[in-house]
């Protein structure tokens, strides 16, 4: 492939560039919201997130303190103060709304005998020749440069007052049992389908493969009616069972494929030694199947954590039961324009799956390759 040196370096260059473009395109939407989640409300609506890292220029208009408060200083009456709360650099100011950037910081503007000056750190000084009166301060027009500024306030807000913290707990309550229970049940079934002889085995495997693709929509109404009739209509137990049911086909399919591929000699020799199937399963098959168990566990965890449909149908809408995806959906409706809340909430809900994803990617990929019949 590296026949001609010139072509090959051009190809390498093109490949690197296209990979780079793809990665940027894929990461950009997430990065945009992530950066926004650290900006405050005003910044988000004033400028795009891509400007967040550079200093931003702002024109502000303030009213100086009332003339009544002027203090005598020599022959003058002086008012001093700050145009903005600390840290902002002033690049220009003015005393007339039509010429808001007339003066550079440090210059003295003369307004009908009154000397006005604003320093580059934002301190203003107004000197009157005689004792002034009145309660309306002088208007000042100031252009400031604001350094990039980030805040954790949004996260504080969503975690402690928007109910996301509670939903986080609810989501855990749903996810952990809904991940563990199907694994156990599926592992036994998978072993039976892989290594035990009985009539109807082939048919059962076919049924499991068929059930892999049954759309959830089919199950919602019948199961809701069933759950309501036995009193677990809006309860954690109901949703655990529902997730177990919907996760089982993939669990059995993945685990059976893996367990069927274990070396035959190991299992046969254990049988010859008089071990029962239960012992073989417990002592040999289960430890050897760890990679497959981990793969499915990650699948199921991500699927349950990210699910909205089943949670909406099988859990209530109240504080005790609203999961994070449901909360996000609610926020999208009620606070659709409050990006600081939405962004922070979204990242609280995304954080755990992303963490699981990056730490267990190996198993996830292995599981995908083994079970790419189902689409999650």
């Amino acid at each position, binding site marked *: 492939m590296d026949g001609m040196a010139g072509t090959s370096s051009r190809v390498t260059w093109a490949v690197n560039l296209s990979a780079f473009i793809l990665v940027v395109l894929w990461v950009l939407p997430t990065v945009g919201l992530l950066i926004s989640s650290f900006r405050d409300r005003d910044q988000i609506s004033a400028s795009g997130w891509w400007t967040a890292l550079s200093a931003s220029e702002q024109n502000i208009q303030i009213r100086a303190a009332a003339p009544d408060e002027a203090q005598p200083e020599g022959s003058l009456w002086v008012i001093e103060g700050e145009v903005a709360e600390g840290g902002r650099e002033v690049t220009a100011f003015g005393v007339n709304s039509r010429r808001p950037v007339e003066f550079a910081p440090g210059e003295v503007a003369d307004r009908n005998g009154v000397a006005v000056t604003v320093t580059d750190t934002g301190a203003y000084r107004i000197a009157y020749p005689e004792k002034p009166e009145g309660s309306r301060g002088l208007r000042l027009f100031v252009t400031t440069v604001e350094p990039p500024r980030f805040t954790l306030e949004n996260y504080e807000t969503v975690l402690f007052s928007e109910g996301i913290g509670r939903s986080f707990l609810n989501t855990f309550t749903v996810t952990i049992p809904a991940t563990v229970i199907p694994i156990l049940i599926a592992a036994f079934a998978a072993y039976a389908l892989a290594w035990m002889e009985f009539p109807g085995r082939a048919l059962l495997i076919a049924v499991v493969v068929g059930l892999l693709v049954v759309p959830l929509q089919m199950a919602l109404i019948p199961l809701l009616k069933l759950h309501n009739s036995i009193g677990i209509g809006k309860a954690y137990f109901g949703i655990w069972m529902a997730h177990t049911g919907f996760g089982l086909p993939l669990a059995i399919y993945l685990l059976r494929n893996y367990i069927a591929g274990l070396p035959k000699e190991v299992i046969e020799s254990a049988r010859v030694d008089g071990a029962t199937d239960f012992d073989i399963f417990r002592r040999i098959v289960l430890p050897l199947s760890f990679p497959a168990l981990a793969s499915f566990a990650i699948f199921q965890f991500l699927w349950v954590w990210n699910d909205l449909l089943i949670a909406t149908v099988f859990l209530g809408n109240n504080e005790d039961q609203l999961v994070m995806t449901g909360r996000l959906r609610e926020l999208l409706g009620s606070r659709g324009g409050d990006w600081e809340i939405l962004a922070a909430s979204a990242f609280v809900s*995304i954080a755990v799956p992303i963490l699981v994803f990056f730490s267990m990617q190996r198993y996830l990929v292995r599981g995908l390759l083994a079970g790419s019949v189902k689409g999650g």
Partner: protein
Amino acid sequence: MATFQPLFWALFTMVVGVFGCVAYFWVSNMLLDRAFPARGAQAGRNILRANAIRPWLFLFPAIAILGVYLIYPVINSAWLSLHGSRGQEFVGLDNWRWMVGDDKFLESMVNNLLWLFVVPALATLFGLIAAAVTDRIRWGNLAKSLIFMPMAISFIGASVIWKFVYDYRGEGQEQIGILNAIVVGLGGEPQAWITIPFWNSFFLMLILVWIQTGFAMVILSAALRGIPEETIEAAVLDGATPLQVFWKIKVPQIWGTIAVVWTTITILVLKVFDIVLAMTNGQWGSQVLANLMFDWMFRGADFGRASAVAMVIMLLVTPIMIWNIRNARAEG
């Protein structure tokens, strides 16, 4: 305490559930061994009998749950689709007749067909390109991780992320959505993307493509690495350019995998619901079947019609189901 109660219950139930499962398997096996001891005069016959029963002990919980949670609902949905709004009175094919004449249903069908074509096609294409380029660069693993990452994000989280990309402010205001900022930067007029009938569906599809490309990339990259070197070397010796090698030598050899990726994404597309619910809730002509079903189930409170819509989704999946079963049986 009130906060931790559910967590406590979760832990409690988890322990009980896990322990209960283990206990079930343990006790039932023990009982079986007691009933048919593998010694004594009838040892041979007992072993045979125990071996005939044991698989069913292992399978029982799985079969029971699959039966109740997947097989019964399919039958029950078919039955409900022939009944009235609360499933009481038999109405024959009324729900189906209503469906065929309903504008929203037809709109959903058309949109679903668009989704069915566009999303698998684009996700597979981008996945193929991503697999091809990331396999040939030094930082390929990092690039793969980053493209794959949206897989871990919930549909609703992805919707929030993309709603921000599509954000629209009136003309003259500072655009904070990057798409509109680019459009304005190029001299165009800002658009409220997700409210433009017909085209808005494509903006929603893009979200799913964004999520699924990583999946396609991972599977296809494994397939590409499995291609025998000789075929590629032969083509290079014959003077094929890298692009020709890719499209004419490599891609034809992984058609089987491409088909698997395509069908997997197809199944997912048919079930897509969260994205439409979060972005438009089916307004501005963007309705799809899964969300229409949800609509009739909750807002319409008509179980008959909702079941009929669900049956349509089931019917659309059925060919793939049959194909999968035949493949699985052929493999053994």
